[in-house]
């Protein structure tokens, strides 16, 4: 970590924007640069030397870009294995940073697809001798990177009552909530997921929404931190992202829209509570999708009206077809699933 890293990271710190009386949006230009940089420091401590080629695996395209930014800053050769398909704009930016991107096949239901993914990884690793391997999404440095953010929230806002964020790898929400709870154990953590994502017990299906949810359970997702879980559709998240822009001029990605939808609902419902929502990136990468009406209509993702409130469900499997939520109650995953399917 050099003074240059510090300067770069400082410039990526979020702006805390008061969007309602009791709702503050933590608007990041590009949040994933923080866990990427932090994990790289951890990898250095773990014994990686700069002469060794790095192979990083991640479930998030944005995390891949963050890693490419930091590695390119130092001239470290980087190969990134991405679990999910990156959009064209993101691919251009990644390759502009001299990173080699390899995209894994989507995990299917059968064991065949899992095997293909493992084979793919083995193939890449065999090609690059003497490399250092790290899974960024599952590294403890992913949630561990958010101490600075918790500190910033405390510095600027003091105690908060609700932390709302979209969940993918579990890094930002679990990390930030974990640090804040050391001081404010009563703070409520609300996760936003999407249908077809297995994170909070939905059956696995192809997801329309990117940047939220996952096809596999990530190691950094600590279910016992969550008080409440929401599921939103891709169309709802897109509509919310556009509404967020109209109401606050914050031009963000769809993950931000989903988080804001839930947070603004909670802020309305609990007018005395101080709510913070995490907006992980700006809208630059999503101009051709979220901000393109033709695309939305063509893909059947156009929504005329946003629902006012979510539907409450008792179990993850009951959620849907639109925005739904359940009280998670800081339970472990297995406990919730056991309640849903008692023997």
């Amino acid at each position, binding site marked *: *970590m050099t*003074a240059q890293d*510090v300067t770069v990271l400082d410039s990526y710190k979020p702006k805390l924007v008061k969007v309602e009386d009791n709702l503050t949006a933590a608007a990041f230009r590009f949040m994933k640069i923080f866990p990427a940089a932090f994990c790289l420091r*951890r990898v250095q*401590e773990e014994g990686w030397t700069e002469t060794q080629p790095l192979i990083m695996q991640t479930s998030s395209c944005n995390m891949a870009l963050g890693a490419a930014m930091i590695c390119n800053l130092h001239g470290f050769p980087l190969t990134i294995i991405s679990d999910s398909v990156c959009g064209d704009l993101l691919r251009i930016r990644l390759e502009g940073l001299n990173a080699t991107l390899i995209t894994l096949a989507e995990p299917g239901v059968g064991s065949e697809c899992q095997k293909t993914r493992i084979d793919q990884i083995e193939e890449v690793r065999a090609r690059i001798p003497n490399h250092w391997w790290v899974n960024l999404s599952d590294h*403890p*440095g992913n949630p*561990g990177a958010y*101490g*600075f953010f*918790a*500190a*910033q929230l*405390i*510095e600027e806002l*003091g*105690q908060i009552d609700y932390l709302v964020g979209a969940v993918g790898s579990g890094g930002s929400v679990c990390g930030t909530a974990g*640090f*804040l709870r*050391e*001081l*404010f154990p009563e703070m409520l953590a609300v996760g936003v997921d999407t249908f077809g994502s297995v994170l909070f017990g939905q059956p696995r299906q192809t997801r329309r929404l990117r940047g939220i949810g996952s096809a596999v359970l990530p190691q950094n997702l600590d279910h016992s931190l969550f008080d409440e879980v929401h599921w939103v559709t891709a169309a709802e998240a897109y509509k919310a992202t556009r509404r967020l822009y109209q109401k606050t001029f914050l031009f963000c990605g769809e993950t931000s829209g989903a988080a804001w939808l839930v947070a603004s609902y909670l802020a309305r419902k609990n007018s005395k509570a101080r709510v913070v929502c995490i907006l992980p990136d700006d809208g630059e990468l999503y101009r051709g999708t979220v901000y393109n009406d033709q695309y939305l209509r063509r893909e059947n993702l156009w929504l005329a009206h946003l629902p006012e409130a979510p539907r409450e469900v008792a179990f993850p499997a009951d959620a849907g077809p639109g925005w739904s939520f359940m009280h998670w109650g800081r339970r472990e995953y297995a406990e919730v699933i056991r309640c849903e399917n008692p023997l």
Partner: protein
Amino acid sequence: MEVIGNQRASLGQDIHDLLLRTGKGQSIGQFGEIFQGQIEDQFQRLRRCLVSLPCSSIYSRATFAPIKYARLRVRPAHKQKALKVTQLVLARLNAARIGGTITIESTVPEAKGCGSSTADCIAAAIAAADAVGQQLSEEEMGSLVVEGEVASDNFMFQRAVLFAHREGIVLEDYARNLPKLEVLGFDTAQDAIVETLKHPPAAYSWRQHQSFCTLSVALRRAIWEDDVGLLGRVATASAFINQLFLPKPMFSEIHSMAERSAALGIAVAHSGTVMSILLDPTDRRLENKVEEIKANLLNLGISNVLHFQT
């Protein structure tokens, strides 16, 4: 600073001209720390630091009877750190050829985390300077005391500071006092004795370093906004992390009892056995809570409770 420096330089030039008098010094003690940890500075250097919980109910007094060209000695004889600091102070003030006896009287319990040796050293430093008609700044005292005892507490400062206790420098000057607290302090191990330097410094993990970063920001806010609630939370969080390194007996019982009584939090000695429960002096139920907590402590076998205000 420069004027003082010049004056001091002239002091040593002729010891015969030096006017000596019996020097007196006094220092309060502490009851553990509000915060202790290791923080990364802007250059990514890790620095151990603390904020003491000052306690004026316990104190050390030093009297120094100076004699030119005499040997320096201390009473009681085991207060060797105070002797060393006296030597360092006299050398700093160009009065190294002054000797005599430094006498320490202290009500600060030793080896409990109450800062007995720091209190002795501060009192001795003030007395030594006083004997040659000088005064030390708090910063000078901080660095001299650390030089004398390797690691020290920070109550030589009359205001709240984040003190690098092994380097003897102030990392952050809050430029004001800690918010006022009502404190119930006690010893969790009446028979045990802790030698500060005998147990190794805590080997914190990188995750704990990140926690300390959050806690230090909360601490600053608590002091600046005079927020006793937040101060109590910082103390509790610091106690929880450090419980992993120097565990206090009955820690969880004491913590849940403090929570049941809606106390602000708990504070521990990070190298010692004392612990305290923090209360808000403006709490309308204060007397009730004090009674309740004392009764609960008695149930845990703790009868000797020191009730003080910061």
